[in-house]
């Protein structure tokens, strides 16, 4: 289509068809044509944003067959009628210059040739069969970010192949948190921000690691006078809605929580009745907390003891309408060596507050249940018995890590060790978004077979033997999903832009056919979608017209914890059994700054989701207008080092040296240097955002935390020196 060659936001927005229609008329002037083009009727088609995990409901406004703009769906619980910068910009991915337009085969370093789908399927199937014959399914893995459609299709194919190693992106995200909650409370409860009186955010930033509803929720809570304590080495923009910013030494949140528990117990501020009824191991826990006084924690965290007392008492006096927010990646989902135990402490402090299931405390979700395909007509492959190749569930390796998450960032290392031979990567970019990119790219290339399925080129795709192009969010209909007490679905807003791209269900079904596993895919995506929404009394037509449809909320469940003991495990027997501390103890982070170095921390900016966003031309322009790629350094330390705002500095760890400009600020702890996380793309095939800014992963070694296996992405110190003005 010639129209695709035009940049999207030129004022001439018309397709070939419109131009021809106008051209055929009596009058043809550019002005007339423009007028007709811009006055063309607009249709609104429901879709879901695909720029971050929130997947906001949106309306795609289509004019002349091309996307004009998007607006938020009011009934969607994440967007609530609004969209962020990523959402407004990201829908144009359909027209992006960096799209993968054909199935591609790597024939040399950074050298790919387009091939047919038929060739791609046959060669992938043949190579995968060879790996299966030589090594069995134990050495085959699949990594993705689980979203409704791929979460159905890919694991089903991998099960048919016999592989157990299905991984999500979480070891670079929230595995520390999720493993901790699984073994402590049996799952994650979330803070009831709307009703709480006193809430402590540890690193988590609702207005920059945002969904529209999380930012709105924080603003609303602040406006009505909620006590909001933001503990973070950085004065993030969330502090606009904080009653207090508490700067903390990087990686020491565990010490703060130990001291909060100490005060709650010592001053008898905890909920004894709740603990008696719902917790196991309180006596051991109490004993464990005895020495962690605020005075001790103050020396570890750099927070005044008086502040720690005030936080503990604020939580205790407002319970049960008080809580420690559940966290995400920050501060410890995958960032520090003490991450898993830190989140065990979040769960335990909330237990001391007796806030589970209470207004203003921590609440478990209770989503409506979707249906599934009739298993008699559409038999699913048997559950694979293969051993996992990422060490998850294996004694002596990572026995307690979540099998549905796995340890994605260690697969390149495993490939180099010969423990993995074939891998499939769907729409995650481990090679850029996990630590030590040189190792990651080398490892992926060491596989016998590496297949990447994605929309745009990425650092990971550059390592693949085969790259399979999917069509973008605006071009496809997906499987439905629930959001709150509603069901929602992405529908196709425009025709496929590049004719050789396909929606995922077709790709997986056809690949399965070539593997001789077609019997497990004897249905269409629509069959699956219809079966999913049927029990909720919703039809696909409803979703195609309304986007998001409210359904009846399931009846409230009585409070309960899905752990082995059915209680909150303050003392965790499973941890004891595997040689981990059953009651959290203080463990220092690996990274500690001295007078010449900084702990390199990172975090999101509201207009970027990881590095994928910086390849968006609109979001890249936002960053460039504001010089937002700069490294933050505390003003006092900068002064001592002779560094001024805007200076160019060299940042070095034993692994890498990079140059970046500096933002000198009072808004960061003196021992931390903050690097926004969404920069530093290096894939040679990308035309947008490459070489702009630097990435924290360059400095950090690729490792796995002992319990949950996460990537410990902030465990690195760097030295900084001025090299230019």
């Amino acid at each position, binding site marked *: 289509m010639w129209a695709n060659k035009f*940049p999207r*936001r030129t004022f001439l927005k018309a397709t070939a068809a419109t131009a021809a229609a106008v051209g055929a008329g009596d009058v043809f002037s550019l002005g007339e044509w423009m007028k007709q083009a811009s006055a063309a009727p607009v249709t609104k088609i429901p879709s879901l944003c695909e720029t971050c995990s929130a997947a906001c409901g949106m309306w795609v406004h289509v004019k002349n067959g091309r996307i004009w703009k998007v607006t938020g769906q009011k009934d969607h619980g994440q967007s609530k009628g609004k*969209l962020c*910068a990523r959402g407004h910009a990201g829908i144009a991915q359909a027209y992006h210059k960096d799209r993968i337009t054909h199935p591609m085969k790597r024939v040399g370093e950074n050298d790919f040739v387009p091939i047919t789908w038929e060739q791609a399927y046959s060669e992938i199937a043949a190579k995968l069969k060879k790996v299966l014959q030589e090594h069995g399914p134990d050495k085959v893995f699949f990594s993705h970010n689980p979203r409704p459609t791929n979460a159905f299709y890919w694991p089903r194919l991998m099960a048919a192949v016999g592989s157990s190693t299905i991984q999500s992106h979480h070891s670079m995200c929230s595995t520390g948190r999720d493993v901790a909650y699984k073994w402590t409370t049996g799952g994650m409860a979330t803070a009831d921000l709307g009703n709480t009186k006193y809430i402590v955010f540890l690193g988590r930033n609702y207005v920059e690691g945002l969904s529209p509803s999380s930012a709105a929720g924080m603003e609303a809570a602040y406006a009505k006078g909620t006590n909001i304590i933001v503990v973070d080495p950085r*004065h993030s923009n969330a502090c606009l809605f904080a009653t207090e910013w508490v700067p903390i030494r990087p990686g020491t949140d565990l010490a703060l929580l130990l001291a909060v528990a100490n005060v709650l117990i010592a001053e008898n501020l905890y909920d004894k009745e709740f603990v008696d009824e719902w917790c196991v191991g309180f006596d051991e826990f109490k004993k464990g907390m005895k020495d962690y006084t605020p005075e001790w924690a103050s020396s570890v965290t750099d927070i005044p003891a008086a502040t720690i007392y005030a936080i503990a008492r604020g939580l205790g006096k407002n319970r049960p309408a008080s809580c420690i927010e559940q966290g995400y990646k920050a501060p410890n989902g995958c960032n520090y060596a003490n991450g898993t135990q830190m989140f065990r402490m979040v769960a335990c402090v909330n237990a001391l507050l007796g806030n589970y299931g209470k207004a203003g405390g921590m609440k478990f979700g209770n989503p409506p249940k979707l249906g599934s395909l009739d298993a008699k007509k559409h038999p699913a492959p048997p559950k694979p018995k293969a051993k996992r190749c990422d060490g998850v569930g294996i004694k002596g390796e990572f026995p307690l890590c979540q099998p549905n998450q796995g340890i994605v960032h260690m697969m390149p290392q495993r490939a180099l060790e010969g423990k993995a031979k074939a891998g499939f990567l769907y729409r995650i970019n481990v090679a850029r978004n996990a630590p030590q990119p040189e190792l990651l790219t080398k490892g992926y290339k060491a596989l016998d077979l590496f297949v990447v399925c994605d929309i745009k080129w990425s650092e990971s795709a550059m390592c693949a033997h085969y790259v399979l192009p999917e069509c973008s969010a605006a071009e496809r209909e997906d499987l439905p999903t629930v959001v709150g007490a509603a069901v929602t679905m992405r529908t196709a807003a425009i025709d496929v832009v590049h004719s050789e791209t396909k929606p995922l269900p077709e790709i997986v079904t056809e690949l399965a056919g070539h593997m001789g596993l077609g019997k497990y895919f004897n249905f269409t995506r629509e069959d699956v979608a219809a079966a999913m929404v049927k029990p909720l009394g919703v039809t696909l037509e409803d979703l195609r017209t309304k986007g998001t449809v409210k359904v009846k909320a399931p009846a409230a469940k009585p409070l309960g914890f899905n752990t082995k003991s059915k209680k909150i495990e303050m003392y965790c027997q499973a941890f004891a059994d595997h040689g981990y501390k059953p009651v959290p103890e203080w463990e220092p982070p690996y990274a500690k700054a001295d007078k010449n170095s900084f702990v390199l921390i990172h975090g999101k900016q509201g207009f970027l989701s990881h590095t994928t966003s910086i390849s968006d*031309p609109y979001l890249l322009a936002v960053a460039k207008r504001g010089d937002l790629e700069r490294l933050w350094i505390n003003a006092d330390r900068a002064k001592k080092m002779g560094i001024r705002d805007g200076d160019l500095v060299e940042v070095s760890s034993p692994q890498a040296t990079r140059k970046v400009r500096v933002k000198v600020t009072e808004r960061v702890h003196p021992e931390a240097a903050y690097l926004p996380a969404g920069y530093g793309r290096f894939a040679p095939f990308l035309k947008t955002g490459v070489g702009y800014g630097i990435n924290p992963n360059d400095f950090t070694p690729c490792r796995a935390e002992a319990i949950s296996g996460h990537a410990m992405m902030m465990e690195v110190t760097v030295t900084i020196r001025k090299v230019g003005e």
Partner: protein
Amino acid sequence: MPRYAMIIDAKKCVGCYACQVACQMQNELGPENAYIRFEDRETGKYPNPKYVMVPLQCQHCQDAPCVPVCPTTASHKDKNGLTMVDKDKCMGCRRCVPACPYNARTYLKDEGIVQACNMCLSLVKQGEEPACVSTCLTKARYFGDLDNPKGEFAKQLAKAKQLRPDFGTKPTLLYII
């Protein structure tokens, strides 16, 4: 005839840039052209810093300095009190760009004309709010009619002030800072 205006509560602006990009999409601008820009200010010392982000755009001044400098009358005040640029009359001389003390005018290179915030008049005529207002995540923006203020807009109006009144251009965009 309504006199359209906007109030921006900078204390609620989290710097997410949603308004900037929504505006670009609504007005079909390229990535390099934006009608909304930002200035931020940090005060105080660690560990007690203060931070404010101020979204800036055409202030729709009552004494708009961009109007008299325009040689073709493209820059003009419309019947709703808005400062608008007539695309067909603008010849791209850019005299108005430095005339604006708020630096709120944008030269669109591809079209060879100058434009600025038009209060999304096409949306407003359909009974909707401007794109930046409807997408603001933290409701930091309020749109309304100065002659007939209603709802939240009316409530905020008492607190809202002109930004840099010393410029003497009498903006109708108002701020809470």
